[in-house]
């Protein structure tokens, strides 16, 4: 039995200690906004925050995050009001959308460390994969979100 705190709510889950956080979120708690893409922390579709830091939840054993604050896309804001989500909406970023929960969560964490990134900063620090190829719009949305958050 492991206790984890997801989006401010405490959950006791009866799973093996090594169960990846991703599958606990999706199948024990029912939060399916966090996606399975690769299972080896390569693609970032499963990105969530643990104590404010972006992690790739497919490769995080649930035991290691017991008691920590976990935030998923569902917990980012009520009504999609987070500046990063608003920037995504304005720039009309998603195509298939499957990677975008992870892109948004990675961006939220990134902008905390770099509130005014250049394109080069974005390219060097955001490594999530988008197979639809939305990178150009993603960059624009990251800049827009950064501006919204500074203002």
């Amino acid at each position: 039995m492991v206790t984890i705190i997801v989006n401010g709510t405490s959950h006791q889950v009866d799973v093996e200690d090594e169960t990846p956080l991703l599958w606990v979120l999706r199948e024990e708690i029912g939060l399916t906004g966090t996606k399975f893409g690769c299972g080896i922390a390569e693609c970032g579709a499963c990105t969530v925050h643990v104590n404010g830091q972006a992690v790739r939840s497919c490769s995080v054993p649930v035991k290691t995050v017991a008691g920590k604050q976990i935030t998923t896309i569902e917990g980012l804001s009520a009504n999609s009001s987070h500046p990063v989500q608003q920037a995504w909406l304005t720039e009309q970023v998603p195509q298939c959308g499957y990677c975008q929960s992870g892109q948004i969560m990675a961006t939220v964490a990134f902008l905390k460390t770099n509130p005014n990134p250049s394109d080069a900063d974005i390219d060097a620090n955001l490594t999530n994969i988008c197979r639809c190829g939305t990178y150009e719009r993603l960059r624009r949305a990251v800049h827009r979100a950064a501006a919204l958050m500074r203002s």
Partner: protein
Amino acid sequence: MTIHTTLSRRQFVVSTLTAAGGFALGVGTTSAEAASLSVRPWNDDTTHYPGEINAWVVIQPDDTVIIRYGRAEMGQGSFTALPQILAEELECDWQYVRPEYASANRNVRDNKVYGSLSTGGSRAVRETGVIVQQAGASARERLIAAAAKRWNVPATECEAAMSKITHKPSGRTFRFGELAAEAAAIKLDKEPALKHPDQYKFIGRRIARLDIPLKINGTAKYGIDLEVPGMVRAAVMKCPVFGGTLKSADESKIASRRGIIQVVKLKDAVAVVADRTWRAQAALKALPIEWEVGAAGATNSAQFRKAYLDALDQKGAEARHDGNVDGALAKAAKVIEATYDVPIIAHAPMEPLNAIAHVQADRVDVWVGTQNADLALTFGAQASGMKPENVYVHNTFSGGGFGRRLGPDEVAQAVAISKAVGKPVKLVWTREEEIRQGRYRTQAAIRFKAGFAADGTAVALEMRNSAGAANPAGVKDGIDPQTLQGLINAAYQLPNYRVISMLKNTHVPLGPWRAPGHSQNAFFMESFIDEMAHAAGKDPVQLRRQLLAHRPDFQQVLDVLVEKGDWGTPLPRGRGRGIAITEAYDSIVGMIVEVTVKGGQVKADRVVIACDCGTVVNPRGVETQLEGGMIYGLSAALFGNITIKDGRVEQGNFDTYPVVRFKDAPKTEVYISPTPGKRWGGVGEPGATVIQPALTNAIFAATGRRLRSLPVVGQDLNGAV
């Protein structure tokens, strides 16, 4: 916020959940609320629906307009574009529009009322556009006729706008919702004419996509996200040597693991069924499995590459011949020759393939994000032994498709597993399974010969192509038009032109990869055209202009490219610019790529895209598809390489099958330059084609090194200037 998806078995009510963040449209709506999509946009109970004007349009008493969508939504945006087209003719208020998937089951029962639900060939707008235009116009005229009848006035005195019919002389109005039931019973003497493009008010607008509000907060339901009561979960491994079969699997070795329910042995695969996906995946890894692989187990990539190149010397089948190529080459003042080839590549959509199947005594239900709901239904029928009319496919949002979801192998497996365990089963492929059990883009090779007159005019072009047919049923007399797309129908005009085809399939399963045929053939053709230009001492744009002199539409796209892409302006040493242009799916797309080659590493810095796709439904939709197609093709050109060893795929995940990330993605500009009056072309696929040769042409410009094979990464570019 947690949304547990609970679905009853027989009745699927469209969720009323719509995401927050509606858009003010300014045009076509009276409200700041936009049309919206449900997170689960399907409704299977569509056969007798009150207010159904035709199979495409339902108008409810509260004016809600349900527009049926007869293709897949895998990111290309046509779940918005097709309703946008229909709404233009219907004259409805966009805020009332609620699109939903057309029912594949009804398509079976109702004599293909939706035509083909398959989503490939950039056909959603290109083919279904006119069908939904007619459906919208017909519904509008019937609403007008219903109003005229009620008022007892001539229909010509009535007008439809913003979901109301107005009697112009008296100013009286009815809402669409008040008339729908009567309109549904009216038969028109003849179908109304469609609007002239000059009359469009809503088509051509940069309206917001309906699915995006659901895709920024985790609410959109993909197949992998759904739950069915009583459902169990499965992981599968198919014989890694294509065509092989299962010999044995020792389930006793995993029987004691937590949550394991059953091991299901299929002819060519084995599935572990458990209470949780991760337990099933982990147990499958631990399961001892033996395969019967046969002779294919001794094959490898080097053999295949040699076989495709050797095939170029065979006689082959003549797929096109203008003039007299042999005569022209014999008389030519100069002849050049070059051989190109490309490896197998996989699709790797972000969402691994998955499906939920529930086989019951009298029906089969399948929930799946598929590009081909018709074929998913057929596969479901075959795998269950049920009649097609008793199979229900509930299409969901797809996390990418790119052609892979046209061949729903996951559906056949999920249905077989559900049948074996007697429960609803969610089957989720691992990424490794997705990479290793693809329906790949074919390996291909080509040999070009070009002849020039003494003054440098290109007079003959011959190509001998060896490639596999993704659709063997399309082969006739040794020729597969899809495999030869972009070669047999290239726009270039030369007096002597010949295409010879050597079809060659191996044990590797093939399928359509975004812009099948075109994707490798544009690389071949546009690279060799570049070589021809240099051989003739011409600028690559100049030669293309000469060979396309009969095509003013191509010329104007080239004009845009040259201007916006700074063609001909100098670049520093180590940088270069390449151009390529083609026509695919009724659209002309050209690109100029700027690269930097430094220390043997290639970086695409900037891509300028110009496109003539005819009438534009939604400019942003065109832009995003071209941008995305470009990145998809760039991944293939830079990295795409599936290799075979001992008959099986060596790669398995994004660590060994790399794709473009932020750091690889160029700055991109898109210029839409439609020829007035030209009907709409497809834009989902063409972007994936010309990026490949534009990139390698740019590498040639930067380094003097001509790349005649892909991928780029792994080839030696050091010291090449």
